[in-house]
């Protein structure tokens, strides 16, 4: 971190852009908070069969990523960061 960064606050228009990008991704995917919650609990349920999950560290969200053809366009993507405490080796 540079000294100048201390004085540089994120401008409100940048905040607006970031918030809009996120809200539009979920608008476009027409994904309600209820559905999001279902996806989340389903993912946890499946993973819990194989591993012990750190419930507090879970971060699942829709975001945008660049398309693979490098055309500069973005597509919605599901981002999931799920910390694992222990792998459950006893699963058959």
């Amino acid at each position, binding site marked *: 971190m540079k000294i100048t960064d201390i004085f540089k606050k994120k*401008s409100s*228009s940048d905040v607006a852009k970031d918030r*809009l990008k996120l*809200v539009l991704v979920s608008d476009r995917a027409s994904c309600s908070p209820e559905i999001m919650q279902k996806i989340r609990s389903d993912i946890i349920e499946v993973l819990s069969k194989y591993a012990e999950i750190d419930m507090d560290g879970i971060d699942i969200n829709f975001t945008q990523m660049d398309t693979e053809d490098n055309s500069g366009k973005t597509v919605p993507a599901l981002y999931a960061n799920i910390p694992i405490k222990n792998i459950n080796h006893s699963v058959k």
Partner: protein
Amino acid sequence: MGEVIVITSGKGGVGKTTTTANLGTGLAKLNKKVVLVDTDIGLRNLDVVMGLENRIVYTLVDVVEENCKLKQALIRDKKYENLFLLPAAQTRDKTSVTPEQMKKLTDELKAEFDYVILDCPAGIEQGFKNAIAGADRALVVTTPEVSAVRDADRIIGLLEANEIKNPQLVVNRLRPDMIKRGDMMSADDVVDILAVELIGQVPDDENIVVATNNGEPLVGDNSLAGQAYMNICRRVTGEAVPFLDLEARKGLFSWFKKK
């Protein structure tokens, strides 16, 4: 055969009616034969913005219900004899007209006129569906605020789902001073987010309020907003016009080529 253009936004109060009035008047100035249709049944306003509120006899609903002939309901503008207004009814609601009836009406109008410009009501319900039913093309008006941009995105999605491809964007009420200090999204920022073609950037200009007070659209005058609206009109006709430098001081116009 003319072209039917719907002016829409989703959110209310972003400048649809002002844009419609200025676009219509500007195209009439360019010697096009134009009719403006107010589709906001129950909350009509295009008549007052155009200064034609005292001349209304018949309305769009009268035409659709065949209480009068189409020609009888068209009000000729005060200044331009090639500009007409078809007003909305004030004492009825959006369900008085169906999308099929609107399509029939706009088809009839575009046989007569070069441009049929529809002022769409706010929202995404029946009034919106009526307004887009016969449209060939759409201009989406937004302001650089999160709420308006979000609604514009929704509208763009709905337009494309209804086979109105490639809507073009007007970003209204821009304040260069705020953009400069990072407190307002620029037109380019909004275009980045919405991924549609930009057709106009209009500054927040107090002359708009004066023009509306007087019922005379300011398109083509010396104000920055007047210039910006005239440029939109020329772009609508297919001319390539560079975007205005909104930071130019009043009366002193510098132009720059975009990109």
